[in-house]
């Protein structure tokens, strides 16, 4: 009871403060708001720069990808590190030491998750047909991030979810046979090493971290713009690797309470 009263008071106070701050906000959809067009006294607006110049700098039509993977790629690298850290934290928290006496016994057959044999045929067959298509789509999303909505995170999540689908339809062990713990730890680390590797390569060529333009010597392109475009793709691949691995790792650890013996 006390918690509800306290919560209501806290919420009313916070809400009114927030609403008070809203009163001098620009209207919804205003193209001249400071966020969209900059304000007097400051540097030229970054979003306007992105809209107008980023195609000339990077030859990538998807503005969100170009900002994400080039201008603010430092943030994206740390976003990937966040996902990796979450996966590690979940494994560290839940990872069973020795045997977990609460674990359910492992069933040798692949039908612990669905009642009876009959529905397994439908689900199993559907999944067998659908998963390759899903994975292909995931790879398409990663590769096509430059031209349409997509990119490393989105593609990585879809790819990870294909393995989760296998685990849901069959047994966690089935999925783990295909994507073992050792593999996904390795894949996750490799993803970030790819990302960091690109950046360090730029530093080795005597420019700032993640300054892709200098990679034109390595990729042998005509100018820095295409080098940036290629490096962005490489970096997105790294992100997709880590996200795939960790998405599946989170599911596997949470569903089996860390034991990786039996899932849902």
């Amino acid at each position: 009871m006390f918690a509800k009263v306290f919560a209501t008071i806290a919420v009313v106070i916070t809400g009114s403060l927030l609403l008070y701050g809203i009163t001098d906000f620009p209207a919804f959809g205003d193209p001249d708001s400071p966020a969209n067009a900059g304000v007097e006294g400051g540097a030229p607006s970054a979003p306007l720069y992105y809209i107008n110049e980023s195609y000339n700098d990077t030859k990538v039509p998807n503005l969100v990808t170009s900002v994400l993977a080039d201008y603010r790629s430092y943030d994206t690298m740390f976003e990937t590190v966040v996902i990796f850290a979450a996966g590690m934290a979940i494994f560290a928290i839940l990872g069973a030491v020795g045997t977990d006496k609460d674990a359910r016994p492992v069933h040798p057959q692949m039908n612990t998750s669905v009642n009876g044999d009959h529905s397994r045929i439908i689900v199993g067959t559907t999944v067998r047909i659908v998963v390759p298509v899903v994975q292909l789509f995931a790879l398409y999303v990663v590769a096509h991030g430059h031209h349409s909505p997509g990119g490393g995170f989105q593609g990585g999540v879809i790819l990870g979810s294909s393995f989760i689908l296998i685990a849901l339809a069959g047994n966690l062990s089935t999925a783990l046979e295909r994507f073992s713990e050792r593999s996904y730890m390795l894949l996750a680390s490799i993803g970030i090493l790819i990302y960091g590797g690109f950046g360090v390569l730029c530093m080795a060529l005597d420019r700032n971290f993640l300054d892709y333009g200098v990679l034109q010597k390595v990729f042998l392109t005509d100018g820095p713009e295409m080098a940036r475009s290629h490096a962005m793709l490489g970096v997105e691949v790294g992100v997709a690797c880590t996200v795939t691995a960790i998405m599946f790792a989170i599911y596997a650890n949470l569903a089996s309470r860390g034991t990786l013996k039996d899932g849902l």
Partner: protein
Amino acid sequence: MDFIRETIQPHFNFWIYVILMMIGLWAVIAKNNLIKKLIGLSIFQTAIILLYVSLGVKDGATIPILDHHAEEVEMAEHAEEAEHGVELVPGHEIGPANGGRHALADTIANPLPHVLMLTAIVVGVATLGVALSISQMVFKEFGTLEENEILEQLKAGNTDD
């Protein structure tokens, strides 16, 4: 009625985000079940994401992806026109046929909030994952996910913990 039209309508997206956020915050503080608290946390974070994304909206603007094909078609058209002696519009870039920098910016939504919120969503998911694993551990230790029962167990177990 005037109040609604003048105060709320131009800022209705911000009102919505405040209400959502307060619902989430109330759930985090007031709810007894740990999972419901996490759901409240999730709503709370989503409301902030809503705020940022609605910042970048411009009236009549489309997604922040430049239309590659339109540019090629126009370049081809302009090349033809140039052959026929028509002047090229100076300073033309890809985008709508009107050309000009300001017009381009008006038709494309602000990409920066989208980028920021991609990061925020990922961070939110990661936090939720870690919080869920901790609640699994709590369940293993206490056998319950209700906060009042956990606190009772902690008080009772004070002497022998």
